[in-house]
């Protein structure tokens, strides 16, 4: 058992492995949460958390260009675009009750019959 | 000079942003320009190193005996589509970028560059697939295409890691053959998704049956031809196909499933899309045999399948399931195309199947010919059923369907009886039907080209010499 811990500590000495264990583990948890979350808003937040954590990993992997691009494009813009889409999707589902959805179906059928 | 094939469509696409309808009028001229450039100013056997960097470091565009015929065929199809399809605003700009991307994916000699062009084609395909309010089909295609694109990226980077360069020629020369199958599995997954081999091609029926005159042609014929080129470039010319028997069996299963699917479809659009899947799966099954005879027959089969599906889908887009009572010419073209797909003698389809079966018997593999014949029988079944139904639709009154009306000539009196096919579409479908018949009589026209392609595709030596020769 002790040599296991020794190798663990020895591995954690250099920054990349340490970061990749800590940040990677956190990302795996967030990824699982993003996939399994009930509400879409939570999984969206988990997704942007994954992107931000991946920025940390890119910095440790000596890739500053990719880190900046991932921060701006990957987590910044992707989350904004998906949030806008989510508001449009949710506002449609929340604001109109089941009733409107029913009329939606009827209007579809009427549309087809015309 | 070769780069003009990609730069000119892109420049026109960027120039056509301000006004929405502008792109539509640029498209035929750009396609014509490409064809003229190809015929008069370019000969195969050239390499262009973009930015004057040596081929291994930068990107090299390779124009050799394999890519030259494919370029001509694809640009011819784009010209036909530009004339026949009714493009709403902004679609012209998209199709201009599609022209550049398709030319790019055929010309490029670089793994990552073909990934970028594949992604451009996929993004345009998602938008075009969402035409006619078919967002669900487009979204399913996006998910499949997204996974396919990521696999291709993984494949391209692992080729770089193992061979040190991204150029196709050098990479194939350097990578040791033991690990090539593992790397090729990534590319294989992408091609199984993009070439609609059934278990991974489940997105195709929804996308192709949305009744638009652009989607099935742009994706079904133009993109499919360029991806068959890339498939044969990567798996026949550069690397070899990992586990070819498995791919062959998968494609054969896909043929049968697609045919059975097409048989039980009630709507013409879905039947045609399943027929397209079975056509392309036949080509993939034949190409996976890696024999020059069979490959040339496969390319001939591809030519016939693409041209006849072009006619079938265009007429389906305009006439829907209303009969040919009011458009006799369209009916003739439709019947010619379906007979050619079935393989009726005196049509191109007959020679396609004939050469394929002959080549397969020479190699005495009997599984694929059996399946091709079964598929032909099933195809004959439902295509003739549809032809009969459409020709004799006149008896019961045609049910009103607001089909494609906003064509170039805005006809005000929208009389219900007279279904209007734009003049361009009529001309194009008749022209293509005519080519099917002409090739039916003189198969040599196309067969020599495909023999030439097949012989060149299978040996890697001239391709590598071209790259080593260096660019102009």
């Amino acid at each position: 058992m002790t040599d296991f811990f020794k190798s663990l500590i020895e591995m954690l000495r250099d920054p990349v492995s340490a970061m990749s264990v800590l940040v990677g583990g956190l990302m795996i948890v967030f990824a699982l949460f993003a996939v399994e979350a009930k509400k879409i808003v939570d999984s969206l937040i988990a997704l942007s958390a994954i992107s931000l954590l991946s920025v940390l990993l890119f910095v440790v992997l000596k890739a500053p260009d990719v880190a900046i691009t991932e921060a701006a494009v990957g987590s910044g813009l992707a989350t904004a675009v998906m949030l806008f889409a989510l508001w449009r999707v949710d506002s449609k589902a929340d604001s109109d009750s089941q009733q409107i959805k029913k009329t939606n179906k009827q209007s579809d059928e009427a549309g087809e019959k015309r | 000079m070769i780069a003009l094939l990609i730069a000119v469509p892109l420049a026109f696409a960027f120039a056509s942003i301000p006004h929405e309808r502008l792109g539509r009028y640029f498209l035929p001229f750009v396609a014509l320009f490409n064809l003229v450039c190809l015929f008069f100013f370019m000969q195969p056997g050239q390499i262009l190193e973009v930015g004057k960097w040596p081929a291994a470091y930068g990107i090299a565009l390779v124009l050799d005996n394999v890519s030259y015929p494919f370029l001509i065929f694809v640009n011819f199809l784009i010209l036909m589509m530009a004339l026949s399809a009714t493009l709403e605003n902004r679609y012209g700009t998209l199709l201009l970028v599609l022209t550049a991307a398709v030319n790019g994916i055929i010309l490029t000699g670089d793994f990552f560059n073909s990934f970028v062009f594949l992604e451009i084609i996929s993004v345009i395909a998602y938008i075009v697939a969402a035409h006619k309010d078919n967002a669900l089909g487009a979204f399913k295609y996006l998910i499949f295409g997204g996974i396919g694109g990521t696999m291709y990226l993984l494949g391209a980077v692992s080729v770089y890691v193992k061979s040190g360069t991204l150029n196709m020629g050098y990479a194939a020369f350097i990578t040791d053959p033991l690990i090539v199958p593992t790397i090729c599995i990534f590319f294989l997954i992408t091609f199984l998704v993009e070439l609609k081999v059934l278990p991974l091609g489940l997105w195709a029926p929804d996308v192709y049956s949305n009744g638009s005159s652009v989607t099935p042609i742009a994706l079904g014929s133009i993109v499919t031809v360029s991806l068959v080129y890339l498939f044969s470039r990567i798996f026949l010319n550069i690397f070899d196909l990992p586990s070819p028997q498995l791919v062959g069996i998968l494609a054969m299963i896909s043929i049968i499933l697609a045919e059975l699917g097409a048989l039980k479809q009630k709507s013409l659009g879905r039947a045609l899309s399943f027929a397209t899947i079975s056509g392309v799966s036949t080509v993939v099954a034949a190409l996976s045999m890696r024999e020059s005879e069979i490959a040339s027959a496969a390319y001939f089969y591809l030519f016939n399948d693409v041209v006849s599906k072009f006619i079938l889908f265009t007429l389906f887009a305009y006439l829907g399931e209303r009969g040919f009572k009011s458009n006799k010419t369209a009916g003739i073209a439709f019947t010619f195309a379906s007979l050619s797909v079935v393989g009726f003698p005196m049509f191109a389809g007959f020679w396609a199947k004939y050469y394929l079966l002959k080549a397969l018997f020479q190699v005495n593999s009997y599984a694929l010919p059996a399946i091709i014949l079964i598929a032909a029988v099933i195809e004959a079944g439902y295509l003739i059923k549809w032809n009969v139904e459409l020709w004799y639709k006149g008896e019961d009154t045609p049910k009103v369907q607001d089909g494609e009306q906003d064509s170039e000539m805005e006809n005000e009196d929208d009389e219900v009886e007279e279904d209007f096919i734009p003049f361009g579409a009529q001309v194009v479908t008749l022209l293509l039907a005519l080519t099917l018949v002409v090739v039916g009589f003189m198969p040599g026209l196309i067969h020599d080209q495909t023999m030439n392609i097949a012989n060149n595709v299978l040996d890697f030596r001239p391709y590598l010499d071209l790259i080593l020769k260096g660019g102009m």
Partner: protein
Amino acid sequence: MRRVWAILVAGVFLYFLVGQFLPIIPTFGNVDLFTRVAFDIINKSTTTNYNAVEFKKSKDLEDGSANVVTSIVVNYRSFDTLGEVSVLFCAAIGVGILASMLKSKKRIEFEEHKVLMISTGIVLPLILLFGAYIFIHGHLSPGGGFPGGTTIALGILLLMLSNNEFKVTDVAKHVEQSAGAGYVVIGLMGMAIGGVFLINFLPTGVVGNLFSAGVVPIVYTFIGFKVGAELSNVISDLREG
């Protein structure tokens, strides 16, 4: 049932990745760059013979940008970036087409915050300046056209969040068009002058100076404007609906 099926698929793929693919790629870290193309690209010796590149000292190399990643993205493999720009171009047009086809024309409104209004007034110019800094210094510091353009687009997003009347006008379309056309024109100019498409025809100067990378800063400025205009169009299309 779907979960079991999903675990099976993921498991098979992971087994292939770890079992067959991992052994053939070099273990993490011990990569010898000599066998890779990147060695010559780092030392900027693809056409000339090898001599060590020194920051602020070596002059008139085949490619002058200090940031090697930028030199790859814009100089050695600038055809990729041309394709890259058209991916974003098509995505922006696609969002435009699909947004205009939406039947329920409903603009997303945010309630106005006094604090946000005032702070945007202060912060926005800095964001735009920072975005411009990123893509102008693309060849010296990390980042380039894409993150710079996106920062500008996010600045405009902040402007949208802070006051509702703000609309992205057609100016963005024209900026996008002229920047895109500019990039292709530079490629064609390279063709006219150097005989080959997308050649770096301007002198490259000393590594590390501002004007040291020939065409690279100009190309990245074009890309920065184009990406900024495009992505602000995408966001405004999503919002206007």
